[in-house]
């Protein structure tokens, strides 16, 4: 462990140190906030947990999609995605405060609210504390298992280069994507949609799925741009690979707009009293400003920028767009869940809403950097990657 047999960029050490400091400070301040207002701390913590779990699960999505489709873009980032997936057990531990404080977050978990609300009584067979916790355990267990086997077999592939292992990975990814689709949908319904237990939208899970994949893609591009100066990425991060990642990020930006607009159009057209209030809340009381910000910086601007071929082929420029998108993802998630977290009121940002994502994110990135040391940062003995690296690099980068 102390002297790995493969190069680990010094940037990983820097990332680990910075992340630990940020994580420690963020968590410390958030805990201080818990002393003043426990309920607010828990709601901020849920927001942070939703975001970073989304990044980890997004890593799993991209990883399994690449196992199914192939492509050098995914081979170059495979170890980053695997490490991201292996953070799920950490996120399960960080979920504990939420599990212990459900009544302070969700109104369906408060018996006195349910007693006065016939609709919530009808929903009780699904929305009750023990079943909610059981499902959460199942989600984390399923994601951990997927991350575990994807990493383990990929390590086996490094050692043996066996086609059988590669086929097994593809089989796992096929089934795994199905499991992921269902678990993401149900976890989104449980953890975020049930904040307003009267409201429902069938595309909600997909909104989360796409957002998570976009978060993961943006983060991976930022990491890759920082690591590309050192071995082993120096040789592998070529304009061609960066271009592919940029194109995929553009696709996810468009898909995000597509699914969000689909939900909006359907609810706007129907204009029904049980659906429309969700948007009315989010388009008044200051939230409309956030909505406009998300529309401009989550779709319009990145879409126009990412049309440029030159931008998509330059790692540092693409990483700036990706970094900005990553931050806007956070704002988008806030717009999605916070109006309900703050008792259905006007725009108000608690300072723990900032410290909690920084804290959880710091610990998460620290853990990610730790996981990045476990295996060589590029797949070994992969015929596609070897063939790609054997090709002459293009003249100017």
């Amino acid at each position, binding site marked *: 462990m102390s002297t790995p047999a493969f190069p680990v960029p010094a940037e990983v050490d820097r990332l680990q140190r910075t992340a630990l400091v940020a994580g420690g400070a963020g968590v410390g301040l958030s805990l201080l906030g818990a002393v003043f207002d426990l309920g607010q701390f828990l709601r901020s913590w849920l927001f942070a947990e939703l975001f970073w779990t989304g990044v980890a699960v997004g890593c799993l999505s991209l990883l399994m999609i690449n196992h199914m489709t192939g492509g050098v873009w995914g081979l170059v980032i495979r170890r980053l995605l695997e490490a991201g997936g292996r953070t799920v057990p950490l996120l399960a531990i960080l979920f504990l405060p939420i599990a212990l404080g459900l009544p302070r977050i969700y109104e369906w978990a408060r018996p006195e609210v349910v007693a006065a609300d016939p609709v919530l009584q009808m929903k009780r067979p699904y929305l009750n504390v023990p079943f909610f916790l059981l499902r959460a355990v199942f989600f984390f267990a399923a994601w951990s298992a997927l991350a575990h086997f994807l990493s383990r077999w990929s390590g086996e592939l490094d050692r043996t280069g066996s086609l059988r292992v590669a086929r097994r990975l593809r089989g796992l990814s096929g089934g795994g994507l199905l499991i992921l689709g269902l678990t993401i949908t149900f976890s989104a319904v449980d953890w975020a949609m049930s904040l307003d237990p009267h409201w429902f939208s069938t595309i909600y899970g997909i909104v989360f799925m796409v957002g998570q994949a976009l978060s993961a893609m943006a983060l991976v591009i930022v990491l890759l741009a920082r690591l590309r100066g050192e071995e082993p990425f120096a040789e592998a991060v070529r304009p061609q690979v960066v271009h592919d990642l940029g194109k995929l990020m553009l696709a996810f930006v468009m898909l995000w707009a597509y699914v969000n*607009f689909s939900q*909006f*159009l359907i609810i706007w*057209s129907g204009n029904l009293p049980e659906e429309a209030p969700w948007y009315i809340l989010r388009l008044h009381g200051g939230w409309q400003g956030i909505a406009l910000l998300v529309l401009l910086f989550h779709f319009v601007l990145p879409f126009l920028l990412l049309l440029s071929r030159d931008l998509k082929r330059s790692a540092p420029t693409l990483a700036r767009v990706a970094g900005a998108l990553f931050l806007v993802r956070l704002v988008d998630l806030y717009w999605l869940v916070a109006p309900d977290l703050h008792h259905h009121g006007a725009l108000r940002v608690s300072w723990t809403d900032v410290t909690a994502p920084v804290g959880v994110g710091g610990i998460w990135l620290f853990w990610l950097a730790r996981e990045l040391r476990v295996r060589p940062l590029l797949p070994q003995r992969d015929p596609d990657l070897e063939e790609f690296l054997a090709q*002459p690099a293009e*003249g100017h980068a």
Partner: protein
Amino acid sequence: MTRPGLYGLMAEFSEPAAVVAAARKVHEAGYRKVDAFSPYPVEALTEALALPRSRLPLFVLLGGIAGLAAGYGLEYWASVIEYPMNIGGKPFHSWPAFVPPAFETTILFAALAAVLGMLALNGLPEPYHPVFNVPTFALATKDRFFLCVEATDPHFDLDRTWSFLLSLEPRVVSEVEQ
């Protein structure tokens, strides 16, 4: 020196890396009227030949913008100006409802611009081209890679270009008749 009726010289390679290396050297030697042929896109080849960037993306962008304007304009004209109708109490200018059709016309116009622009820029359909006079050229759609230096290039000299191409170690160099 060239001779009448000669279109150019064609070098034939079996490996993509070889044709990329050859294209780079041909470009460095100052030849500009050069084209390469391969069964599948070789990205490094475009760069090795330093071909000017295609204007097709611009056409597609303009097509998309025109499609967006046309689609949205049509909807606005129909629903707001020409035949306003009260549907579900919604305003005449109901932009959310206008988005899907406007999106579709954006894609339609952009796709048409891509196809027609491609045909306009590459000169297809073209019933006759001299490179097909090289007997093995049909393999360019299968497993061979070709590099053609045209006789109209100011640097072109039948003997010197011939021996220069041979020095790049192709399978064979052949004369291309007009």
